[in-house]
């Protein structure tokens, strides 16, 4: 929508001059030359035929003269054409001017004259300088959130410029749309009828859609891009670490995804891996324009514990995405949650399956084994009981209520590990609640018959450590009751029973996996727990599940979004002062809140910087988390400021005649030459018609 405005609207009074040609016309008719002529015989005859056309032409001439005068007057009034203008808005009226400054990470791109953000601040201050004395100014600092620097604006230019100077580029991703909403909201609250919103940004290709439409009447949006040219940039996008338990000395594959955002230039650069700030590996990457690649490092860490890791590349014009931080946890022990089913009877521990499994994983009960076992009842299952990089062993499943079953399914889908002993004399209630279907069992039948395991899939990691003799020993153990299942995929069966039913099989669900045993390890249902191979079978299965590589785990924390910390199991927060500190030594009070299913998290709101964050209880390190830049900030190809993206907004680029252009955009494009052209055209036409007249 376009509007016509006038810079010198008082000149419009001169439109009264429109009457001039009409007055002259009337006077001319009054001052008509009267000539006595010898004979009107010829003239009379001709005039009757021609003068009607002449009269019409005369009116047209009068119209053209009036038009010419009108357009000359309008040209002197300096007409302007711009979008959504308030017509005839006096130039001297006070305006609400809101400057939205993009503080996103991409604004940190280094240019010849400093960073883009430096230039943005200069532009913002120039807007302040170009504003009228009575304009009310405000600034929206746009990063992860958009905030107004002044509550109700100010007319003091110096204060505004000082506030702009105090802004710093953030590591966050900014939403210009939110910034605009904040600015528009501020305008609506103000009492001023006209306003201007300036958005100073790099307007990158991956920025959010900035369709400016439906802005209130009298408000104009002007975009001020800090640079319009594409800037080559290569970013480290993601780091992929395996979601599995990493054991000391184990070889770990770390994938690093890098992207060349340049559309024209290839990139060659080294990528280095640092663990605890020690350079561990380096690879050289060659990327075509607009290409991505994943570099894989294989490293082993002998020391258990949490290790701060960083991948880095050579510095380019946007340094913030040249590093990426992550943590690698090397575990000394495998956390196991032993979930007890129905058959657990407190008085008769030794008849319960969990008893033998517990004994197998933690023989001495001293916690010195490589497994740290935690025992829960299935009816008490909570999120806290599900180990992030460990295994859940579920013996004799009886029945999970709907919520807990959903919890377990989600755990598996997101990379959890599960070993299930279906049990012998189970009541079978679990078969009706969807659990059986979830594990691919079409039909489950409780059978009482002596059977033994056989037909092992020897090359599977669960059995690969057993030799023939050991497998023979394992096959000698008998089960007296078991669950005969139908519908299990044959290629997932690791061992059969003598009846031909599946004895042990593996299920993959989402990113997680489960090993299901059709029998139950207790004395009541067989002599399996007495087999000398039972202990190795439990160990290898749990180790296999804990160490098997599932989907690569990746959870990113970005600046400007809430940062959560995992707490160690059973962490008691009372009596401690919990603080979160970053590498710069900045500290912030941590907030705790309880999630459903018993999980508790600590968090801080919207960290501003990338890097490592420590959750400290007094002076004790409780947990660590990593914040990395959102790589959508890395694409420095500018957005085409046109079409839907632009909406009703206009663009003023950072050129030498910025002030003039800005003034023009403020007032609209001056179109007085067009008006003069119309006036001249009218005069030329008038002259042609007049001459013929």
């Amino acid at each position, binding site marked *: 929508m376009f509007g016509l405005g006038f810079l010198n609207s008082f000149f419009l009074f001169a439109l009264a001059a429109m009457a001039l040609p009409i007055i002259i016309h009337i006077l*001319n*008719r009054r001052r*008509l*030359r*009267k*000539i*006595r*002529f*010898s*004979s*009107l*015989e*010829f*003239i*009379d*005859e*001709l*005039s009757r035929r*021609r*003068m009607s*056309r*002449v009269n019409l032409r*005369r009116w047209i001439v009068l119209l053209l003269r009036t038009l010419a005068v009108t357009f000359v007057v309008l040209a002197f009034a300096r007409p302007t054409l711009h979008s959504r203008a308030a017509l005839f808005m006096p130039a001297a009226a006070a305006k609400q001017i809101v400057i939205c400054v993009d503080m996103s990470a991409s604004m940190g791109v280094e240019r010849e004259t400093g960073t883009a953000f430096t230039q943005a601040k200069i532009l913002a201050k120039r807007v302040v300088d170009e504003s009228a004395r009575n304009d009310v100014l405000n600034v929206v600092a746009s990063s992860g959130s958009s905030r107004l620097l002044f509550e109700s604006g100010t007319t003091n230019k110096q204060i505004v410029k000082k506030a702009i100077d105090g802004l710093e580029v953030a590591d966050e991703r900014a939403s210009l749309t939110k910034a605009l909403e904040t600015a528009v909201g501020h305008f609506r609250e103000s009492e001023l009828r006209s306003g201007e919103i300036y958005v100073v940004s790099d307007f990158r290709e991956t920025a959010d859609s900035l369709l400016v439409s439906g802005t209130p009447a009298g408000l104009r949006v002007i975009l001020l891009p800090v640079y319009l040219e594409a800037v080559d940039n290569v970013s480290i996008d993601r780091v992929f670490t395996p979601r599995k338990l990493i054991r000391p000395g184990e070889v770990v594959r770390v994938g690093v995804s890098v992207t060349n955002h340049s559309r024209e230039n290839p990139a060659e650069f080294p990528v280095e891996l640092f663990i605890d700030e020690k350079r561990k590996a380096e690879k050289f990457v060659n990327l075509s324009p607009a290409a991505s690649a994943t570099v894989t490092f294989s490293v082993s860490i002998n020391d258990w514990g949490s290790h701060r890791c960083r991948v880095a590349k050579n510095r380019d014009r946007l340094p913030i995405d040249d590093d990426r931080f992550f943590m690698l946890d090397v575990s000394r022990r495998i956390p196991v949650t032993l979930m007890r089913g129905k058959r657990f009877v407190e008085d008769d521990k030794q008849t319960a399956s969990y008893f033998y499994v517990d004994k197998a994983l933690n023989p001495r009960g001293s916690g010195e084994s490589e497994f740290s076992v935690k025992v829960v009842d299935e009816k008490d299952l909570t999120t806290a009981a599900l180990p992030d990089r460990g295994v859940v062993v579920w013996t004799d499943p009886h029945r999970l209520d709907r919520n807990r079953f959903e919890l377990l399914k989600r755990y598996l889908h997101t990379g959890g590990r599960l070993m299930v002993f279906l049990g012998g004399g189970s009541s079978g209630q679990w078969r009706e609640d969807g659990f059986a279907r979830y594990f691919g069992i079409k039909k489950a039948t409780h059978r009482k018959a002596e059977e033994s395991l056989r037909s092992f899939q020897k090359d599977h990691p669960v059995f690969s450590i057993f030799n023939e003799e050991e497998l023979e020993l394992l096959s000698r153990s008998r089960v007296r009751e078991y669950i005969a299942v139908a519908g299990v995929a044959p290629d997932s069966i690791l061992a059969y029973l003598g009846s031909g039913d599946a004895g042990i099989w593996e299920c993959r669900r989402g990113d997680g996996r489960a090993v299901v045993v059709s029998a139950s390890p207790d004395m009541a249902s067989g002599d399996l727990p007495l087999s000398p191979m039972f202990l190795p079978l439990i160990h290898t299965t749990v180790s296999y599940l804990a160490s098997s590589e599932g989907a690569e785990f990746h959870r990113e924390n970005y600046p400007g979004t809430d940062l959560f910390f995992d707490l160690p199991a059973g962490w008691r927060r009372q009596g401690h002062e919990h603080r979160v500190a970053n590498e710069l030594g900045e500290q912030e009070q941590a907030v705790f809140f309880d999630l459903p299913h018993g999980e508790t998290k600590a968090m801080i709101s919207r960290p501003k910087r990338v890097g490592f964050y420590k959750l400290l209880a007094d002076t004790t390190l409780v947990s660590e988390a990593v914040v990395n830049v959102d790589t959508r900030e890395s694409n420095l190809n500018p957005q085409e400021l046109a079409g839907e993206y632009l909406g009703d907004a206009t663009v003023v680029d950072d050129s030498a005649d910025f002030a003039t252009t800005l003034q023009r955009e403020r007032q609209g494009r001056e179109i007085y030459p067009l008006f003069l052209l119309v006036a001249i055209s009218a005069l030329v036409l008038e002259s042609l018609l007049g001459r*013929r*007249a």
Partner: protein
Amino acid sequence: MRAKKPSAITKFLDPSVVSRLTGMELKARLIVEGFIAGMHRSPYHGFSVEFAEYRQYMQGDNVKNLDWKVYGKTDRFYVKVYEEETNLKATILLDKSGSMGFSSLGGDVETGKGDGLDKLTYGGLLAASLSYLMIRQQDAVSLCAFDDQIRALLPHRSVRKHLFFLLGNLERLSAGAKTRISPTLHYIAERVKRRGLIILISDLMDDPEKILMGLKHFRHRKHEVIVFHILDPRELDLDYRDEVEFRDLENDKKIRVEPAFLKEQYAKRVEGWISKLDRECKGHQIDYNLLTTRTPFDQALTAYLNKRLRMG
């Protein structure tokens, strides 16, 4: 033999120069003298036995008329001029209707008169010059001034005294009423019995058919006829700017027009009218001469002399 210097005198052939003079006789004399001075041979003839006066020899005069005695005494050439009886009756019909009062040479003509020559004045001067010339060569001249009727009618005379009388009448003429040419033509045609020369000086702003009928009447009576059609240049091209209200000089009719839009068509119409008159006149051995008020008088006088020569 020495002739008069022509340049000084021939300027009086220009109507604009003559219009600044006063006295019809002076004007007529200067026109005629100027005209004669520009000629290579004398236009005079009609010499008689009765001596009238001497005059200087001019190129074209017969040498036999030279007075050799005078030459012997004065060393100058003089020819003897003799009184001769009238050998031609010329009738000048001068239109003094309202339309003849039109002049455009002065610019705006609110009153119908400018500071230039109006057609009546031009026609009057022409009549005076012709009268002067004719009486100088002993032809009898009659003048008839008319508009819608005859306003003055002087008899045929060839004496010099008659010339002054005639010029005095011409000087007093003023534009009159509506034009009605043909009744006057028919009347004069009936009245002039002896075969002679008819000179019609008019803007012919009347029905062409009727005018031609009148002229044919003269031809029927064996008269020789010369028509001097006097028009103002503006009547030919209607060259006016801006919007104008025209008022008819004869009937006060008013028309408001933009002449620029009409002039092209108007000029064609006038041209058609003139060419018709010319064509019709030629068809009946009538000398038709179109003159504007800017046309030098020698053109008209030459036309007359040519006609006179043909008549013998």
